[in-house]
């Protein structure tokens, strides 16, 4: 589902948001602190703070269905992935460098746009005991870069 270009894109200094809906269709969402590919690139794992995401995680446990958006502030390039098999896994300390690198990349991305670094670092402040990983297989991908092609489904490419 995810070609190599998009696979690389979601691991740059993008803004990440993950959503899942409740039984009443009411969605909830949280910011992701980075992501990685697992299962030979077939699955995406997004790092989430449970303290901010009680409702989101409940919805994932209930439905396993997620929407995940990645957007690069400097270019507006935006990609949405959808998954139907999301599950919550414990955070592995070995993945800490991914989060650290993601925050550094994001800071480098938004500082030229005028956002104060202290605000960005506060937004992404975390503790290791307040992290989980949401893992899913993308089954649909959509370009949401603003413009006439926004919302178009992307063809699956190996």
């Amino acid at each position: 589902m995810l070609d190599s270009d998009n696979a690389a894109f979601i691991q740059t200094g993008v803004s990440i948001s993950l959503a899942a809906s409740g039984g009443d269709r009411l969605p909830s969402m949280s910011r992701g602190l980075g992501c990685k590919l697992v299962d030979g690139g077939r699955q995406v794992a997004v790092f989430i703070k449970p303290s901010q995401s009680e409702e989101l995680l409940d919805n994932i446990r209930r439905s396993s269905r997620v929407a995940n958006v990645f957007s690069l502030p400097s270019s507006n390039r935006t990609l949405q992935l959808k998954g139907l098999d999301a599950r919550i896994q414990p955070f592995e300390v070995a993945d800490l460098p991914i989060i650290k690198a993601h925050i550094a990349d994001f800071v480098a991305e938004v500082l030229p746009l005028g956002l104060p670094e202290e605000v960005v670092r506060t937004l992404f402040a975390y503790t290791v005991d307040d992290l989980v990983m949401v893992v899913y297989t993308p089954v649909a991908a959509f370009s949401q870069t603003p413009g006439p092609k926004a919302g178009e489904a992307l063809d699956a490419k190996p």
Partner: protein
Amino acid sequence: MSIRLETIRECFEGIIPGHIATSDTEGIPNLAYLSQVQFVDNTHVALSYQFFNRTRQNILADSPVRLLLTSHLTAAQYRLTLKYLRTETAGPLFEQMRAKLAGIASHTGMAGVFQLLGSDIYRILAIEQVAGPTIAPPPPPLNYLTALRRATNRLAGCTNLECLLETAIDCLVDEFGIEQLMLLMHDEGRGRLYTLASHGYPVSGIGSEIPVGAGVIGICARERCPIRIGFMTSEYAYGRSVRASIAADGHGDALESAIPLPGLPEAASQMAVPITAAGRLLGVLYVESLADLHFGYDEEDALVAFAALLGLAMLHHQQADDFADEPAASEEDSPPTGGPPLAVRHFAANDSIFLDDDYLIKGVAGAILWVLLTDFAERRRTSFTNKGLRVDPRIRLPGVSDNLEARLVLLQRRLEERDTGIRLSKTGRGRFTLAVNRPLTLLES
């Protein structure tokens, strides 16, 4: 304690874009980024509808809506639960959002891509602050409530329109810290706004005009709502808007732009606030800055309140001047005039006045000046009253709603700027004198 929407409006400016989540009828979630959130009131917001996308389909299929908004000042995040109510495709809210979006589009390289199709209005069902650390916001540039209190006191001390205008400009500069501003009055009969006062520009532009509906100022006048843009956009640059509007109107003549509008050619932030009273549009207050996002919701609130006060005071002084008693008719001895004669030419078609071939003024103010100078030339008359002008058949005022006193201030200021030996001065409520220190040659064309 529940969070009031008005206290988190910094999240709406799009500095950190908001996220919107919806679900389709099967419960599949969808996420998208928001370019703007518009504060409507404490229980309603409006979101821009720009593309018919999945979010739009879900909303029309009655999806509950969640927003995730982030403060660029404190890093606080808020989740808002919304219910879609309706879409507006015209009117004040739509125009407010369309103008703001033009700025955002231009700033983000999306000019021509972002286009407002509608303003989707939502009711706020819940606001929840997301757990997490925050930082103290930087102190605001000034306390707008204090500024408003001080400005209120200062305006209350004015006894006529001229003082009110001067004090209003001083208050905006001293109390509100505004560096570039214009005050324009509404000419109801002609659908124009004319600049009566300005501050912070190399030339005052007094007497310059802008059609109702053109640019930030004209749209503010037409919709009678504040229009605020945070980034430079050619779409709302007034030079271009004015020219296009005059051309489209078909009523324009060469004099329409004889006096250039003052203004910053590179303004990034622009805000226009209507001055209304008793259900009428009296004028527009316009402020601008070279800095991005210089004016926010708090500045808008403060200026809207200030403009409301100013409008009531203007209306009061206009009426007081109009109904002041006629003074005993006495033709005073005017001082002898000397020097080379000044040629004053009047074109009856548009009541324009030229002094020695230089354009001075037209319209109602031109008609007034011609009457004053004719009376002076024929009878050496120098004392006049607003009441007398209002009933003078030669002037043809549009009606009692016309702000005659503002026209007189405009005329007085144009004459002062041109310094050609003709002066008008207030001598009391609704009274003024004409002073001419050069021989005049009146030419009717």
